[in-house]
């Protein structure tokens, strides 16, 4: 994580970084505010090019549509470029259930698929595994003689995958940017697997969330300068594919997925979360993500952006936990290339959770009520100070350390109330 971050900071210095961030934020604000118009424009232009659009309200609908396309074309396997939205669709499980083999071709996704695991980071899916882990995995699953040399492991994966590209009936990619003006779309990558997945099979299916549409080709100038730098510290990704419609004799579909995004869109306070360009910088810098790891978030999207989008977009049950698993340090906000105010989004989610009753039940609510009473009356405050002095004195000596007291004291000494408060000292000042 730190190396990605250091590379990012080094790469930022050769472009007007802050101006780009502000421009990107404004471009996304405009696109998201006009999403309906731009999506329809994209559809028209894409269809004019010979593409086919499928609209999916839910993840399940999108997965069903995908399977339907595979069946219609008699595909027995699908090669996949990296796609986080395909995780929302549970696409691999749905394909397998339909008797169609999903083949992850992004090296990190390939590793994670072999391991029967899930991606833990939006651009580095196998970040939670060491090269020794991968070495052992390839030995047990691919019969490779053990090595932990990254180059040898990559070449082994490449050899394993090459025939699969050529056999697949359908190739799948995600979409980084869909351009309304032209009906074209852009996919960025470093390994070349996305391009090959799209080009080798006779059918290309691109799956995208509704928020990926931007207004003009010229807008790419801003986003492409930000995206690779933010993700890996590269000035540009190895490949930037522009898909201009299906090649002659081939089919190209675009499945446009809502899957809860309109819930974020509907509320002007949460709309900003849709500006995300899935770079991963927020989780690279987050001290919580760096210690807990992506799997701890229990969601397709981890890290700060995951904590922000998951409750409303994916899983309401997360609302009582994910937004609270943060110190609101703001490091993510400083890194975000599109200037999403992630800490503000998190604290608003906390407000929503408390008022909906999904957090802050019982003891916490009562304690907060008592705290506020003490803070809105000097007499109550002074009584509370006396109580606190007694509580700390007892807490230090007592073997029974309930709830928060015990949690504090696991690794920390209790602070000692001073013999005289500042208030008392000031009142006795000549």
């Amino acid at each position, binding site marked *: 994580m730190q190396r990605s971050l250091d590379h990012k900071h080094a790469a930022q210095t050769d472009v007007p970084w802050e101006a780009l961030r502000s421009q990107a934020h404004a471009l996304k604000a405009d696109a998201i505010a006009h999403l309906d118009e731009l999506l329809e424009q994209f559809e028209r232009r894409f269809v004019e090019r010979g593409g086919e659009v499928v609209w999916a309200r839910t993840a399940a609908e999108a997965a069903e549509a995908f399977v339907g396309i595979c069946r219609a074309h008699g595909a027995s396997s699908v090669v996949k470029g990296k796609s986080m939205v395909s995780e929302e669709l549970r696409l691999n499980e749905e394909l397998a259930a339909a008797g169609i083999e999903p083949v992850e071709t992004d090296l990190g996704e390939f590793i994670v698929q072999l391991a029967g695991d899930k991606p833990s980071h939006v651009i580095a899916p196998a970040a939670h595994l060491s090269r020794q882990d991968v070495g052992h995995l390839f030995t047990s699953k691919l019969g490779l003689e053990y090595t932990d040399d990254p180059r040898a492991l990559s070449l082994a994966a490449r050899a394993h995958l090459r025939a699969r590209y050529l056999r697949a009936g359908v190739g799948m990619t995600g979409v980084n940017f869909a351009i309304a003006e032209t009906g074209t779309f852009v996919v960025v990558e470093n390994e070349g697997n996305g391009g090959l997945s799209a080009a080798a099979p006779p059918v290309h299916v691109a799956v995208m969330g509704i928020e990926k549409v931007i207004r003009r080709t010229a807008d790419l100038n801003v986003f492409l300068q930000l995206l690779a730098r933010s993700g890996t510290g590269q000035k540009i990704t190895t490949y930037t594919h522009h898909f201009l419609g299906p090649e002659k004799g081939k089919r190209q579909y675009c499945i446009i997925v809502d899957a809860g995004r309109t819930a974020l869109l509907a509320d002007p306070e949460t709309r900003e979360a849709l500006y995300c360009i899935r770079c991963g910088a927020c989780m690279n810098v987050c001290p919580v993500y760096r*210690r*807990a790891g992506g799997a701890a978030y229990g969601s397709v999207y981890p890290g700060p952006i995951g904590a922000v989008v998951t409750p409303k977009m994916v899983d309401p049950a997360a609302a009582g936990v994910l937004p609270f698993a943060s110190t609101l340090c703001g490091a993510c906000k400083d890194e975000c290339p599109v200037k999403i105010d992630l800490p503000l989004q998190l604290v608003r989610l906390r407000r929503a959770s408390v008022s909906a009753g999904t957090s802050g039940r019982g003891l916490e609510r009562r304690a*907060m009520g008592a705290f506020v009473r003490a803070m809105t009356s000097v007499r109550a405050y002074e009584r509370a100070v006396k109580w606190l002095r007694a509580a700390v004195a007892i807490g230090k000596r007592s073997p029974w350390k309930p709830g928060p007291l015990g949690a504090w004291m*696991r690794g920390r000494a209790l602070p000692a*109330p001073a013999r005289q408060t500042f208030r008392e000292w000031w009142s006795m000042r000549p």
Partner: protein
Amino acid sequence: MTVSRGYRRGEPVALFVPCFVDVFNPEVARAVVTVLERVGVSVEYPPGQTCCGQPAYNAGYWPLAAAIAQRFEQVFHDYPWIVTPSGSCAAMARAGFAHIDPSSSAASIGARVYDFASFLTDVLGVGDVGARFPHRVTFHEGCHARRELRAVDASLKLLGAVRDLTLVDLPMAEECCGFGGSFSVSFDALSTSMGDAKCVNAMSTGAEFLVSGDPSCMLHIDGMLRERQAPLTTLHLAEVLAET
């Protein structure tokens, strides 16, 4: 930090002492008074004050936080300058009040609240407060002061002018100490893991003192240093500047 106008000699400055400083670290507030009076500022302490409401705001109890913010506004209503030794409380007043209710009177008082370091450098235009502290020191800036108030430069400028003080850079200074209010107990394993890194980094400098502008961070970091019996004492910036 953008300042609306300069300080006029003789104007009263109200001191805001957050609840936890009042109770746990009153010496920090006493040091603020010492330094401000030394540079010729008349300090007042409106007695009805209590809290900025950040614990309620951060925990999602916004109507309760609004009540505390309202009280803050009433208590400090007449003062053009409000100074506090807590970076996180200053940030709460400056930004949090407006997030709760942009049209409230509390939202507009935020612009008059300053953290101690920024008040000295940006409002008073003072970099040298005549302090002497012949020790090896490292500095931790709280996240709110660092990112919302952008107060690091102010603090470093003030420390740089202290006679005989040796300032050593804190490794990974930008990483959060892990306090985060209720996070410190709701997610105590993560909190102490982050605090541990902060302690290890601080101890690696060989400093005798870990200085900060954020007493809330210090409750947590100090708690961890005491538990480790570390040869490092925590001090607030004001306490260093008060020494002559």
